[in-house]
């Protein structure tokens, strides 16, 4: 039953992925809908890289630099 529901979910999700036309992307093109960090947040990400053991996966650099302090 669970597998069936999962398959149903996948099918519904795929059906919902009908291509949105350029003229219909006014909401998607809103700057706040961008699938990336804001440029002003780069410093916040930098200190998180230094203060936390995990890094990467955020569009920022995944290595390099000392991070000594």
């Amino acid at each position, binding site marked *: 039953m669970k597998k069936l529901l999962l398959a149903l979910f996948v099918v519904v999700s*795929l059906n919902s992925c009908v291509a949105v036309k350029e003229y219909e992307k006014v909401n998607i093109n809103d700057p706040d809908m961008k*699938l990336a960090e804001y440029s002003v947040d780069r*410093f916040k990400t930098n200190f998180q890289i230094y203060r936390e053991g995990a890094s990467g*996966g955020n569009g920022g650099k995944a290595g*390099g630099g*000392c991070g000594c*302090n």
Partner: protein
Amino acid sequence: MKKLTLITILLVSVVTMAQETNENSDTSYKKRVLETPEVEFLSSYYTQDGDNASVTGGIGTEKLTDITPTIVITYPLNDDDVLTVDVGISAYTSASSSNVDPFDSSGASSGEDDDDDDDDDEGLRNNYANNVTGSPWVESSGASAGDVWANLSVTYSHSSDDRNKIWSAHASVSSEYDYFSIGFGGSYTHLFNEKNSEISISGQAYIDNWLPKYPTELDTYVEVDGNLNSGFFQGITIWDQNGNSTEGNELSTWSPVNGFELIKDKGRNTYSVSGSFSQIINKKAQFSIFFDLVKQDGWLANPMQRVYFGDRDNYYIGNPESIPNYTSSTNKNVFHLADDLERLPDSRFKIPIGARFNYYLNEVVSLRTYYRYYFDDWGLSAHTANIEIPIKISDKFTLYPSYRYYSQTAVDYFAPYEQNLSTQEFYTSDYDLSEFDAHQYGFGISYTDIFTKMNIWKLHLKSIDLRFNQYERSTGLKASIISGAFKFIIQ
């Protein structure tokens, strides 16, 4: 199950084929990738404090301030190509790294007592040989107390005529007093399904080099070939755990761990491959999934960071009366001599994977979410979740409340102050690699003027972004950061 998988694959194929029939249907009009040159002035002010400084073996002040002025210039070379130059510095002062040399004469080593009793002070000073002291709880003023990190990064990107393919290449160089890094890489992005779907792959390499600075006592020990009656150690009394002088009894005084040596391999290289897929779900929602594969090799430990072992005797320089209170912040004048530098494996493999999901709720409110799972072969795994809710309060102003949760397990080699053992191959007391969770609360505001009416000379103001974030870690570390960005177009 096989049938279900088959059906799913079939459906994906059909949907993809149906959408690809419309591909390249909008190439009649070629818009410039970037209409006008842009310049963005960014800066941040960061402060932190805590009680687990890694330079002093997991205890001591972590006080740090950092200011980061940065300029990013984005210049359209022609209709298809854009050049981005990113120049920035990071000027910091750090109590923790100042204690690479905690005995600096103008800092903690001045023999200052924190009470006002002059007679008592005089008596204490007479007990310190040569008046040399230090403390993990007091900021020294050695050469490492402050520095400037400088970075230059150049990125060139090219877009195809239909804007469905984007290539980019970048190179960077950064330098600070104990580190030098050169990086380069490239990426390829492909948009399809009428730009509803996007696949991107990128690769990066950083070829880095330590210009290592070591804890004073360890560096000097090598320099004087273990002779504690010469160099920095000449005339200085070393005290044992009970506050007894070890002077004249060289066999039972301090030395680093057996076989101690400074770092041999000064290189540290990082190679990464990143991939992402993003999809517009409908007129109001889109998501992306992404991963990195990161390989590091070379000297991955930090040569400035001390380690103290629980199975070795302890020795101190400074006021022997403060030894019983060594781990308390009331200790202002005695310093524990290190057993060793931090030692970590010479390779690390890291994999972060994650997703973003953004939803346009209405004309006022949007939802931005982020999740990442991370794991590596040092035993560290971490979860990161972030939510941000942009709220448009007018056509020009937007508010940005946000919350971020982070948790990680410790690396296999972490133990607190005095809890590592000298029999281990690898060890660290760096609390950035310990088990903890962290909460971050943020608030921001932005001003956007699409008509760029305000101008200074040829710079027309496009947007202003301000952010404040408060970060609180379960280890006790607290940090706050204020960031600002002013974006102009050049006309």
